[in-house]
Structure formats: C-alpha cells, structure tokens
C-alpha cells in the first residue's frame, strides 16, 4: 500500500516536473486523519500531500472540468469511468488530461463502522480486515463489511489501462458480480407499495443537488433544472416536484451512468439513488442488448437504435 | 401582525413611456385597500409584484409630498418584462417601504448636488421633488443628468420644464451621443461633472446610475474635493424578501434591503469590496 503511495507521489511529481500538467487532482488527508478529501495541486512540490484514500475517498473526475489544462488526475477504476464519461460527453479532451490509474482494494465507508467504535484515531487495512484504532484500542472488522456501496458493485479493482501511468500493486478488488436483486425487490412490489416507498424516500430529499453535483454524467454547463424558463422543475420542494426531479435526474443519466455511486455517497439524507440509476442501467442492458451499460461508449444508448428494438407498443 | 411577505394589491392608474426605446416605464399605482397603503421617505423602495411571475425591488420614484405612488422600471429581467406588459387598470402587488432612504433631514440648508445617469434618476427624483416641495429648507440644488442618447432621457417634462422653474435650481443635461434634435452638451456624466466642477462647500452629492458611471463619478467627486461623508449613492443587488431575512443582498454584514440602498461613500469603503 505504502509502495503504491510512494509510486503515486513520484508519478505526480514527475508529471509536474516533465511539464505534463499545470494542475493535478488527487486525494489528500482530510480534517479527520483517517479520511481523505480532494486536493487540487498546482506544483510538484505539493506531491507529498498525495494520499491513496483508504476511507471515504471522494471521486475526482468532475474536478477536471474547472482545472487549468493540461490537468492530471489519479483514478481508481470507478473514477476512470467517470473520466471516460466526461471525455465522451466532450466536456474534457483526452489530450488535455494526464491520467494516473491505480489499483484499488476498495474504499472504507466510515459510516459503516459501528457507532460503538467512535473516536476513531486511525484506520488500517490488514489482509482481509480493517483495523479500527480508537482510544480504547484496535478492533478488527471484515474488510467487505465496511466498504462503500459502490465497491460492492465494483467494475474492477485493477488499475484502468487507459492511462498515462498505470500503478497496479496487484491487490485490486476483484470485479463484483452483477447483482440487480435490489432492483428486482422493488419491481416485485405492487405499484402502490412502490409509490409509497418512493414517496417516503423523496420526502427526505432536500433538493440540495449534492447528487447532481457529484455525478460525472451530470456535467452540463448550466443544469436545465436550474433554469427559470422553461421551468422544468419548480423550486417548490413538494412531492410532485420531487418525483419530477428524481425522474429527470435519473433519466438524464440513463445509459450514461457509470455506476460509480458517488451520487448516493454524496446524498446527505441517504436516498437510494443507485436504485434509480441502476433500474435504467438494467433495463438498457436487457432491452437493447448492451453488455455492461456502465462503460461509456462512443454513441450513447439513447443516441442510437436498432430497427428490431423490442416492440412493446402497438 | 402584518404579514411580512404578502403584498397589498394596487391598481395601475397610468403607465408612461419614459424613453424612446420604451425600455423604461413609469407606473402610477393606487392601493385597492387603504390599509395596505404605507408612508415612505425619498430613496426608499418597495417590492413590486406581478402576481404569477414574481417580485422585484424597485425604488419609489415619486416624492411622499405628492399623492400618487410611482415606480419607474427599466425592463431587464423576467419580472420587469412582465411589468412592462401591464397597462392602466391592471393589478400589481406592492409591499414596503423598505430600505433606509435618503437622509433628507440631514441635508437641510445644504447645497444639493444630484448626479444621475439613465434610469438612475428614478430614486433621485423622489428626493429632488421632496426637496423642491420643501424648497425653503434646502440650499441651491444642482442636477446633473445624462443618458446614452436624447431618447434615453427620463422624466423629460421635469428635467426640461418643471425643475428649472424652481428658484436656485439648475438642471444640466448631457447625452453620450446626440442626434439631430440635440443641441445640448455631449459626453459622459463623469467628465461633464468635472467640467461643471461644482464646489464641495457645504454640499451633499447624491449619485445614482449604472455601476461604471458611479465608479467614475465617485472618483470625480473626490478629485473635486468632496469628502466621503458628503457623497451618497444607492446600490442594487438581487433581493427576494426586502426585509433582511432571505440572506441574499448582503455586502459584508450590511443588507442592501434594510441597511441601504443608500450608503455614504465612507460607509461603502468600510464594506468588503464584493460589489
């Protein structure tokens, strides 16, 4: 792990020294020592700040939008998909980017560490366990029990190969099997029951737009939902508008969602947003014969068609 | 207790086009219900509603010494555009008065210098008419006004006919660029001001206009020897409530809606340079 971090620091420093980048987005130590937060570096001398991100690591792709180019980024495979999304959406150009990909064993979700283990002083990965250090001493938790939800649906923990530098320590999490059982569960509910469930979820939504702002597929210069005219979405936070908001957000990323789950991680009130996104993903895969719809393609699923698409309408 | 954000309904009595381009209109309004009517001081503002579209803060351009409340509105956004669609007999919402207004009582016996550009004359007009209606309380009044073109001059009746008729009252008008009908001075307000070079002695300078004009007028005034305390201007920011609650129109810890819109230059200098 440390080796990887050292390699990464070196790679970042040399990206600057070789003049490959004017800025670099990576993770650094956060306010809580065990968590990381995004940092935008402007000089190679900042490379020491670079962290791999054991816990609560935010995804970085979207920072590329506003960074001075050429811009560097360090990506794990989920973030690499986000970068690819931005490139396909022509929001950044590949030639303006300097990508360092790293392998990833998964990222710890500190919210999954039981309350009884609060006052965390440090976190440590040891084999298949997470060691939580607190004032009361260390405790071991199974690694898979504390991972972020997105890691449970990980495309691959191996370092992405579409990168300028590939740093893979071979400890990447193996790809997670595709599992749509949570979607099935919702589908098996009666319509009224489903509606009631979403009504309850959407009632929590405070329309803070954290989901949208975190999403690498939501990169419009100006979100249409913010426009006063036409008013696609009223600013009134009332249930009909919540349905409008969540329908539109999910529909706008339908076929474009890379499955990184950053929306859900960013949501401060715990909305199961991936249950919405993945419904589209699954339907797209089954209806249009797309293999893993999370992978960005040159032509978006809704930007094309097949003459023999399923015909359900008559 | 009076509902804070609920406007009173008022009938538009008349609509007057001020400019040739039709982008400034003066609305004279009368409350439908006497209990909604309010008193105000020159420089104060009100929230004007086009019900179904929205609200915006507009300075009251009439003087409280006259009986009808008037607003001069330049078409710039959604609400003002909707307002421009309205005609006499239509209904608007009005709530106020908001803001501090001009310190007309502190101006007594002083020489008053009003410097305005374009629609910026609207808030000053309230003060000008107030002072003219209480003519004996104030010293000489000098009004310097400019607009982009002759067609863009507002309140033409007053600047050319009415005001110059008052004793010790001088109105000087310039346009950025004249046309065949124009034989008056040409040039921007700040340089016109410097040419006229009014004296700062016992004077208060009140200025309002586009931000770029204000910037250079303030410079010119200090070059002419006006102290920061002698210079008064009004500010405009996006507002939603008008009552210092919605948290929008602050510059530093001051809210333009309740602490302004009128500030002396020395007050402005104490605020962060955010505007």
């Amino acid at each position, binding site marked *: 792990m440390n080796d990887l971090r050292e390699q990464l620091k070196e790679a970042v420093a040399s990206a600057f020294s070789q003049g490959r980048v004017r800025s670099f987005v990576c993770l650094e130590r956060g306010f809580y020592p065990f968590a990381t937060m995004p940092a935008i570096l402007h000089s190679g001398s900042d490379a020491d700040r670079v962290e791999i991100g054991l816990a609560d690591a935010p995804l970085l792709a979207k920072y590329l939008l506003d960074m001075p180019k050429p811009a560097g980024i360090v990506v794990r495979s989920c973030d690499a998909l986000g970068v690819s999304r931005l490139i396909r*959406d*022509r*929001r950044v150009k590949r030639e303006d980017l300097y990508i360092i990909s790293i392998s990833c064993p998964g990222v710890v979700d500190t919210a999954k560490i039981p309350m009884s283990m609060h006052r965390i002083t440090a976190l440590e990965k040891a084999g298949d366990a997470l060691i939580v250090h607190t004032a009361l001493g260390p405790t071991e938790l199974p690694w898979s029990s504390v991972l972020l939800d997105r890691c449970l649906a990980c495309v691959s923990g191996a370092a992405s190969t579409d990168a300028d530098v590939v740093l893979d320590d071979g400890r990447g999490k193996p790809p997670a099997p595709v599992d749509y059982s949570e979607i099935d569960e919702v589908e098996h509910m009666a319509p009224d029951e489903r509606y009631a469930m979403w009504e309850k979820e959407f009632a929590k939504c405070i329309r803070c737009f954290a989901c949208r702002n975190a999403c690498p597929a939501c*990169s*419009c*210069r*100006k*979100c*249409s939902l913010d*426009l006063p*005219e*036409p*008013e*696609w979405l009223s600013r009134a936070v009332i249930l009909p508008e919540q349905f409008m908001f969540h329908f539109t957000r999910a529909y*706008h990323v339908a076929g474009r969602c890379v499955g990184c789950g950053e929306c859900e991680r960013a949501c401060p009130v715990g909305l199961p947003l991936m249950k919405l996104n993945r419904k589209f993903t699954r339907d797209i895969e089954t209806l249009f014969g797309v293999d893993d719809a999370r992978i960005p393609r040159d*032509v*978006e699923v*809704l*930007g*094309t068609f097949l003459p023999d698409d399923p015909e359900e309408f008559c | 207790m009076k509902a804070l954000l609920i406007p009173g309904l008022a009938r538009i009595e008349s609509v007057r086009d001020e400019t040739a381009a039709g982008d400034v209109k003066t609305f004279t309004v009368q409350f439908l219900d006497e209990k909604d009517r309010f008193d105000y001081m020159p420089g104060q503002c009100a929230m004007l509603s086009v019900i179904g579209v929205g609200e915006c803060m507009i300075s009251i351009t009439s003087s409280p010494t006259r009986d009808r409340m008037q607003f001069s509105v330049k078409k710039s956004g959604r609400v003002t555009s909707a307002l421009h*669609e*309205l*005609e006499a007999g239509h209904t608007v919402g009005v709530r106020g008065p908001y803001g501090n207004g001009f310190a007309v009582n502190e101006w007594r016996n002083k020489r008053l210098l009003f410097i305005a550009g374009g629609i910026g004359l609207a808030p000053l007009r309230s003060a000008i008419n107030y002072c003219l209606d209480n003519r004996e309380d104030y010293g000489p009044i000098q009004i310097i006004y400019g607009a982009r073109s002759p067609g863009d001059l507002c309140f033409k009746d007053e600047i050319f006919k009415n005001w110059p008729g008052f004793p010790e009252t001088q109105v000087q008008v310039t346009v950025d660029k004249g046309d065949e009908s124009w034989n008056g001075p040409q040039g921007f307000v700040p340089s016109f001001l410097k040419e006229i070079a009014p004296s700062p002695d016992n004077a208060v300078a009140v200025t309002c206009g586009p931000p770029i004009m204000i910037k250079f007028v303030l410079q010119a005034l200090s070059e002419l020897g006006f102290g920061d305390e002698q210079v008064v201007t009004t500010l405009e920011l996006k507002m939603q409530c008008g009552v210092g609650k919605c948290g929008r129109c602050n510059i530093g810890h001051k809210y333009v809606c309740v602490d302004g819109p009128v500030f002396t230059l020395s007050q402005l200098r104490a605020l962060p340079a955010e505007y």
Partner: protein
Amino acid sequence: MIRVGVFVCWCGSNIAGTVDVGKVAEEAARIPGVVHVEQNKYTCSDPGQDSIRKAIKEHRLDRVVVAACSPRMHENTFRKCAASAGLNPYLVEMANIREHCSWVHSDMSVSTPKAVDIVRRAVAKVKRCVPLHPSTIPVEKRALVIGGGIAGIQAALDIAEAGYDVTVVEREPTIGGRMAQLDKTFPTLDCSSCILTPKMVDAASHPGIRILTYAEVEEISGYVGNFEVRVRKRARSVDEARCTACGICILKCPTSRDSEFNMGLGTRKAIYMPFPQAVPNKPTIDREICRHFTAGKCGICQKVCPSGAVDFSQEDQVLTEKFGAVVAATGATQFSVEVYGEYGYGRYPDVITGLELERLISSTGPTDGKIRRPSDGKIPKTVVFIKCVGSRDENKGYPYCSKACCMYTAKHAILLKEKIPSASAYVFYMDVRAGGKDYEEFYKRSQEMGTRYVRGRVSRIYPLDGKLIVQGEDTLLGERVEVEADLVVLAAAMVPQPDAPEMARKLGISYNQYGFFSEAHPKLRPVETNTAGVFLAGTCQGPKDIPETVAQASAAAAKVISLFAKSELSTNPNVASVDESLCSGCLWCSNVCPYKAIEEKIITERAGKETVTRTVASVNTGLCQGCGACTVACRDGAMNLLGFTNEQILAEVEALCL
C-alpha cells in the same frame, strides 16, 4: 402586452352542430391574454378571413388563434391571412375543434368543454410563439425521375419542355414500363405501342432528358432543391455507343430464359432486348444466365458483334449527382394470384392473368397476336374472365379497388370477340365500375358484343377433358353457374412494387398500409409528398389507368416546374435552434439527427477576465427538417425546436390540465 384574438368557427353546422360555439367564445374571452373573440360561420371563407384581418388591425392583435378545423387543413390559409394583415404568420395557432371534437362527439355537454380546453391549449401555445422568418436556400434546377414508365416519361417530357434538365432512372434495360406490355388501350382501343413508343423516342432524343436504364437509385440525401442522389448504373456488358442494334448477338446467343416482358409466356436470350422497340435500343447481357458469366465459357456474342460493342468487363457505374426535385414514378406490379388456390393459377396453364392475355393478344407477343391458350396452343372458344382478383378482398387480397380492371376486362372481352368472333366470353364480377369519360359506353359495347356478365364469385375451377370447369354463382339469379371454359383470365389487382417501402425510406416519404406512396393531402396536394421536393406520378401512389397516370405525371411535372421557376426556396422556419449559452457541446444531438443537420461550432466568449473558446452545437437550417429528435436528446435544454419549443409544449400541457 400580448394581445390574442380568438376566432371560433362554426364551419356551418360542422362545428356549431355539436359544439356550443357561443359558450366556447365566452370561455375563450376569459383566458388571460385574450383581448378579442369572435365567431364566424366559415372562418376560412373570404368574409371570415377578412374579419380576421380587420380584427388584427382594429384590436391590435399580435397573436391569432383560429378554433376551427385541423391545422393540416387550413393552417396555411390562416397564416397567409395573418401575413396579409401584417402579422408574422407564425403567430397563428389553430385549435382543432372539428376533426378532434365536433365530428367525434355528439353530446354538447362534453364536446363544448373539450373545445374550450383545445382553445385554451392553443392560446397557451400562441402566447409563446415568436415571429419566425423562413430562410432561403438555392435550388438545383435538375429533376430526377425515378421510373421510366409512361408516368416517368410524361413527367420527364413535360419538365424538359419547360427547359429544365431531367434524368430518368429506370431499372429495366428499357423504358416503357407496363404500358409497353399492353396491346390496346381502353376505351379507344388504340394500340398501346403506337402511342407509347413515339413518346419513348421523344424522351430519348430530347436534349434535356438523360435516360439511365438498367440503373437504380441507391441513396437520396439532402433536401428540397438540394438532393444528392447516388445511382448505380448496372453493367449492361454492351457498349451503348458502339452498338448498332443489329441484333446478331441476340440471334446467336445460345442461352435463354422466360421473357419477363412476355410475362413468362415466351423466352428471351441471355443477351436481349425486352422488346423490339426498346429504348435505348441496345441489348443487355443478363449476367445471371449468360454462360460467359456463369460458366466462364461462350462469348459468342462478343465474337459475332460486328462493332465490338460487347464488353464483358464493364462494371457498374455509381453516379452521385445533385437534383432539385424528385418525381417518384416507380409504378406498380401485378397481384400474385397464386393465393387464390380455387382458381388454380400455376397449376392449370390455361388460367392466366390479364397482363398475360395482353401479351397473347399483342402482335409482338409470343403468339404473334393470335390468342392461343398456353397449354396446347388451341384457339379458345369459351373464355371466362374473373374480376377483383386480389382487390376488394380483405381475406386474400387487398381491400381497395384496383380501378383499372373493370375496364381492361371489358377491353379484353371486346378484343376477344374481335380476334375470335365465334368465341364466347363470360365475366364474373362483383360490380362494374365504369366511371370515366366514355367508359360506361365502352362497357356497354362489350356487353352488346355478347359478353355475358355474371354477377358473382367463382368458387372453383378444375380441369376436365381439356376444358376448365368454372363453377360459380350468379347472385342476381340466385343459381349456380358452371361454364366449360377453354381459357380463364384473372383480372389481377395492381399492387405496389415489393420494394416500395424501401424506396419510400430512400425518398423519406411515407406510404400507406399497402405500400402505395402517400400524397401530402388526398385532395388538395395529390402529387406532393410530405417531403418537400419529392412528387408522385402514376401507380406508385395508387391504382390508376393510363389517362389518370399521364395526368398525374403532368401534374407532378408542373409542381417541379413551379419549384424550379424560383431561384431560391424559403425554408420551413420551424427548425431546431441552439441556445449557445446553455449548450455544453456534447453533441449528442447530432447523433440522433436524421439529416446530419447539426454540426460542431467553436465559439469564443468572455468568461470573467479570460477569453475562452468552446464547442457548441450548430444547426444547419437548410438541412434541418424540424423533427425535434435533438431536443429530447439535449439534457442541457439548449436545443429547442422553433414553433414547438419546450416552453410551448410545457405550457400546452399545463393549459390542458387546468
């Protein structure tokens, strides 16, 4: 302030009969923005239009809603009307309270509120209309005629006569089409070839007409005035310039197959001309059967050709050319009568179709004009004609009337009597439709000549002792009829070409459920299509006889000529439009554009203190046809469709849901 005028039409009693027009007008007056409402008996009439013009001026109307019939009927009428009163024509919206309301609801208590809703929708939309201005595009003054039958020939001649260049593309080796196969034409019985071949020659020799035979249209792109067409001219294997049409090659060719021209009743060689008067009068090698191509042997034709015109190495030529207008004259074909098992076509050689009979009667046909039955070459004494084979039959064929069959059957009966005076003719029919100049008389004549018309269906045909026993019913007499026939002639329906839908897709036009191309309006725009610049002539649009085909061809030509009479065209301003300030430049919109009308554009703008460049989408308004697919692909809300903007549609939804 927006000042909407609403004009509620009675349409005589068409609307007023089932909708309380007064109530609609009353409610319309309450809609915000409506300043004037009036009712008219017939708004589309001169006085009706005058009242709109008057109201626009008197009430300073800046938007007009006409609550009347379908916009597909009169939108243009009222747009022109508004324009003549100085109002931008795109500030007019129609509320369809006739087709969608008064004609489908009889209860005033439901139709009236519905009409009010429809008007409310129209007002909501028209308030968000902005003046639109057509832009202009240049016109390439060359016409493409697809199909070299009589329709195509006539259209080409008319267009060329007006001074414009025409290219005719015909997929057979010769022009002439179906008409060339006919012997005589009704009701005058003049010889089909005699009137057709001069026209074929005229077309071929006209300096303004270029004929590409043995050629097919592969792709059409572009738009009115500016079509780009790719034509594949198949290799004839004969150098047309060298060939002198001496015919030796044909004579010597050892390979033959059934003649398509003779409906399989005779044969033709591998190197062949479909018929002697073919234009161009040059042979073609059928590579499917030519032994040189199938077996790599032979080559006799090349050896015998005195002018060295046979060229086995010839390749298909692909031409890409620009045209300003296209006339589709792709014709029709004959119904496959095999599906009527009871008639035994295909099993009994003496059951033939009308077109086959034409070839038997024709002096250029396989029997040199002698009517001999195919099985044994005997002269038939009794001939049974069966009409409506494949037409007017929803079970086995098509529900429509094939239109020409009644008359050609009458013609066949007459010709039979002329050729074999002793023969007797029976015609089994459902109805005789003889509408048309001199048609009824012609039908009568066939009766007077002794043709026996039996009203009823034939239920079965079976052979017995060299005869065909035709069993049927005379529904007028209510008795069974049995005829011992020597020959049975089926009046097969005219049906669309099997590849008509494919051609329609190339042309970007629609077709009906059978495959006939759809005209823009069944009555008022019968030769236009919904794709500007594409016109229809002949049986590709529906069954027709020759006079009608020729008339329609001339009409299509007239449309082309009037199109070419302008040096530029004004385009439909209801096109997509980009709000560059919102566009993120992802260009997903361009993926879904069927006209490739969206391009990438680099713009430069100020961002704070910096000048930055960025990519946005840009619409080519000449190419854009206004479908709006891009608007839905655009998440930014940057792409809009003028005349059908997001604002308008959302307002319409809202107005309908109030």
